[in-house]
């Protein structure tokens, strides 16, 4: 099915849910839905006979710090094994907001959501085990993929002096802008 037809089906079923339609490269279409309705829309996409998006290809977060009013987006790239079409579902969040987990629909969302939580700090409600995945469990320096997390630490050049305190101070990492 063409992306536009899928869009029409969702529009008819959920009239006030779609906040924005995001056309993109290669004829792909994504929709931004209200976060309260995300689980319902996802369930509809999975179970509607003409759509059957039974394959969650990918789930990821994006950080739009300073670019958009609502900072985070969670992106669900869906695929249908029967009909061989793709579709993209998105939800937009403020920094302190959370979104429903889709583990109940697609099991592989488990690690994807844990990874997104780990690297962006986005909380997924009703996730069975939302802990850090890639970073160590006791890591407390923030969320690495956020745009305000520095890519590198700049180390000051150690210099020679007999003052031990000054040498130690010069070795402390300084965050780069």
């Amino acid at each position, binding site marked *: 099915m063409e992306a536009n037809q899928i869009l029409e089906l969702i529009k008819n079923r959920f009239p006030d849910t779609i906040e924005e339609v*995001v056309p*993109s*490269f*290669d004829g*792909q279409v*994504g929709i931004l839905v209200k976060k309260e309705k995300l689980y319902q829309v996802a369930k509809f996409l999975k179970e509607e006979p003409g759509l059957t998006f*039974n*394959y*969650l*290809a*990918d789930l*990821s977060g*994006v*950080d739009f710090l300073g*670019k958009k009013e609502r900072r985070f987006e969670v*992106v669900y*790239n869906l*695929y249908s*094994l029967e009909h*061989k079409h*793709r579709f*993209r579902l998105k939800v937009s969040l403020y920094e302190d907001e959370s979104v429903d987990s889709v*583990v*109940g629909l*697609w*099991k*592989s969302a*488990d*690690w994807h959501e844990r990874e997104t939580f780990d*690297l962006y700090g986005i909380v997924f409600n009703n996730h*069975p*085990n939302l802990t*850090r*995945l*890639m*970073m*160590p469990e006791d890591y407390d320096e923030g969320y*690495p*993929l956020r745009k305000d*997390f520095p*890519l590198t630490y700049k180390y000051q050049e150690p210099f020679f002096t007999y003052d031990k305190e000054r040498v130690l101070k010069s070795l402390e990492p300084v965050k780069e802008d």
Partner: protein
Amino acid sequence: MTELNLDMEQERDILPESNIMTINMGPQHPSTHGVLRLIVDIEGETVVNVKPVVGYLHTGFEKLAEDKIYNQVIPLTDRMDYMSSHSYNMGYVIALEKMLEIAPPARAEYIRVVVAELQRIANHLLWLGTHALDIGAMTVLFLAFKEREKITEFFERICGARLTFNYMRVGGVNLDIGKPILDDIHAFTQSFVKELDTLETLLSQNRIWLQRTKGVGVVTKDQAIDWQLSGPMGRASGLNYDLRRDQPYGVYDQLDFEVALGVNGDSYDRYTVRMKEMRESSKLIKQAIEKMPEGPFIIDDPRFKMPGHKDRMLNIENLAHLFVLTAKGYPIKPGEIYSATEAPKGELGFYIVSDGTGKPYRIKFRTPSFVNLQILPDMSRGHLLADLVTLIGTVDITLGDLDR
């Protein structure tokens, strides 16, 4: 699902009578193929639950990619799955070509098929050798590596590198393949099939091999769909899903090949599927070499093509193009794409968000190992601890691919 993610204490409360022991496997265990760590609950010798702990090789490629221009990300994709670098290069440049709306010349498309399918054979041979070694058949390792070495030598002749190639470019490939190399590869595809027969006589009817793999780690088709398995993992369970055929990219729709499928979804089926795939790959290589037209191997567009040495020394504009390409790259208009290709291990997806500059705003690598490994707890419950080694091997993970 909820059972799977209970922590160890809760699990003990549920089974108070039983005698469960928790042991640690990895991250330095030789049969975990890298730095995978498993926390295994066993009762006697039977596995009750497995909890994979990943992230020991977390490299931060996604963060790093946001600070690099698009071309500089190609070497990063090499290093994700270092067993199938060509396929990862190809997946990434195909995503970029869709965003830039350009198409590579026909010769480049066929060259891509040749190297990508050679890479698939190399990946499966390495898998076969190490998997058989895990189970206890040592001869297979040497025979498989003997063949893999030939492929590695082809790669060395094609692009100068043996493991991380950085060969694909936006709009084509880096270097042309000469006729002598193509002839040698063509001859290899014929001799290789005979070598595969030898390998199969060692394993397919081998009693030990059958006992260790038949009925071990059965994944039904419904489970495979539920867990979004892809590649040989899914196809062995009868999940008829191959992106080369279902959403063809490059020239795969002009080539003739079959998709290998399994029936039972056990470790033995995954072995047969991979063996079949190697045969199909050698068929594909043969066809691609025979159909390969003459012509340019990279698009003739100064926006993307790095000018050669002679060009930039004789022409000031070419020199300017070189500076711009190296320092700033090419801008891509704002938008986003999800592009997927069939890597040897499964579906390899790139979700790229562009903000109109020469650097990607966000890249998410959807790697097959990451998704495929999630089924390990479900697959291994009820099996012996010794079978866990078989099961890790049969998923075919690369830790660089898993942790990124």
